[in-house]
């Protein structure tokens, strides 16, 4: 069995008294588009830097396709490409010249892929212009082009749509989607929920350096299934009635009505009971939390006591 594209165990990075990354485990399987979610300063970029061998962890290890960049150096990055924070290039060189430079540092057939990479990111027309005159979005796309020269099997992208206008964000997502469809494993750090929901299969949510959830995005969203919002002609009586019913729990006054947890059968029985009690139902709707709501619940407020896993997601219910 071939090693996972990304496998980090117990990664720790401290800056003085500040723990930027705290005991992070991360496994990205082949072919996955993996979202690494967290607010600014949560340690996403620091984690990616450790994966790429740009900084040394204080503890733990990071392997890409089974190879540790700190042990094997540049060899560990074979088949791996990407960028942390904004991709940086030499402003006094043209876009094509910059790509020629990085292709020379890649060797192999990288130089032969320059034209194709420029076409892919739609920068061919501006390739002869100096990068100093490029917009932020063009530099992001040039960063992707630089990554593609390595013919990667794993792409590490650190907030690739940050700073882009809506059109640029859409184009970047389409590009990532296209690359993923080609079989490239993608590890995407982001704090943009829509982006992650649109692109990713699995996510890790990180908060103050610690992973507070790691797993399937679908499973994460499913943890909030079974929650309903109810508005009636008499919420007080409805609440009392609901609280006494079997299969209904956690009845609360919220958002100008009630919220409650119930399975399908119990909620059907409750609606009948409300009618029989002469209480009119104005609205009874499933109230599934969005990824954004889950994200805020996990990343705001008191730090989580447990580091990771489904038990944390369970606690959100």
């Amino acid at each position, binding site marked *: 069995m071939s090693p996972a594209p990304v496998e980090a165990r117990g990664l720790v990075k401290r800056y003085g008294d500040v723990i930027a990354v705290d005991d992070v485990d991360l496994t990205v399987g082949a072919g996955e588009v993996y979202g690494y979610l967290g607010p600014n300063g949560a340690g996403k970029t620091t984690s990616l830097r450790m994966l790429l061998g*740009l900084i*040394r962890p204080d503890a733990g290890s990071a392997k890409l396709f089974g190879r540790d960049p700190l042990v094997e150096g*540049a060899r560990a*990055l*074979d088949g791996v490409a990407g960028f942390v924070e904004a991709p940086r290039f*030499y402003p006094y060189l043209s876009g094509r010249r910059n790509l020629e*430079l990085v292709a020379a*540092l890649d060797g192999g057939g990288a130089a032969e892929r320059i034209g194709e990479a420029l076409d892919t990111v739609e920068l061919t027309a501006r390739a002869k212009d100096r990068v100093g005159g490029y917009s932020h979005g063009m530099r992001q796309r040039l960063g992707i082009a630089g990554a593609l020269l390595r013919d990667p099997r794993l792409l590490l992208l650190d907030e690739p749509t940050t700073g882009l206008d809506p059109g640029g964000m859409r184009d970047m997502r389409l590009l990532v989607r296209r690359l993923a469809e080609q079989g490239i494993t993608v590890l995407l750090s982001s704090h943009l929920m829509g982006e992650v929901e649109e692109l990713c299969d699995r996510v890790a949510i990180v908060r103050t350096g610690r992973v507070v959830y790691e797993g399937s*995005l679908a499973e994460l969203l499913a943890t909030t299934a079974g929650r309903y919002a109810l508005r009636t002609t008499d919420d007080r009586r409805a609440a009392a009635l609901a609280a006494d019913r079997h299969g209904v729990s956690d009845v609360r006054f919220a958002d100008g009505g009630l919220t409650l947890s119930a399975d399908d059968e119990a909620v059907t029985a409750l609606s009948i009971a409300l009618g029989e009690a002469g209480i009119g139902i104005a609205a009874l709707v499933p109230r599934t939390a969005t990824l954004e709501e889950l994200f805020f619940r996990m990343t705001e407020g008191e730090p989580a006591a447990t580091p990771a896993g489904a038990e944390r997601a369970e606690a959100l219910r």
Partner: protein
Amino acid sequence: MTAISARPAAAPAARSGPRPGTRTVYVWELRKLRAQKRTFLGLGAALLVPVIFVVGLLVDSSGGGPDGVAFGELVRETGLAVPLVCLTFGAYWLIPLITALVAGDIVATEDQNGTLKTILTRSVERWHVFAGKTLAAFTYAVVVLVLYVGSGLLLGGLAFGFDPVTLLSGTQVSTGHGIALIGAGTLAYLMPVLAIASIALLLSTVTRNSAAAVVGALLTSLFMQVLGALSALDFLDPYLLSTQFNAWMGLLREPIDWAPIVRAAWVSAAYAVPSLFAALTVFLRRDVTA
């Protein structure tokens, strides 16, 4: 959520062919230098000083040369004396400054601009990157010096003739011999210049700040000059880098005085090698956070 259905990803295939190394980095460092205005600012300064000196001599009707400078009184007799006087002028400040401008910048600027992470996530090892940058900084120092001395020789020769030159020992040597000695003297002067470049590289790597590295390298040179000027510290003189800037004059004697040349070689190495070793160690182990 819309999961992307991807075809199964494969592990990267084993890499074929040689990996890029120091030579590749070196070639691209030179190309980068060629694309930057600062590079030509230094080269322009190296060209301008001999031009100003020769033009100054031509418009000066008093007929003399610079006083108290080796070969100063010979500049109107032969153009071969001009590059030697220029070398004396530029010994302590001009050439070290121009050299430090590039050597002090070559790592720090990549750190400041964030391009260090761009090149360190490719297929070259860190030590190749450092070696390529060091060679490029040294090459720039050589080019600056060749331009400085070469333009002085050419302009001096055109203005005052390519005539035989009288050495410091009073012996007159032929034009060809004189030019050969100028070349050898330039090489001897290059040794402490490369030591300054090495110190600038160390500061560039450690401080991650171009200005600090350039100023730091020059302050190091100045500090040594101050130490050399204190008579109570005369015993330090032979070991100061500043003393080695005049070692080339040992070649302009008949017979050649090799003692200052040999000393310049090992004293310069004593400054350069530990500086480069320390810089490489820092570069290999550093966190790239920019």
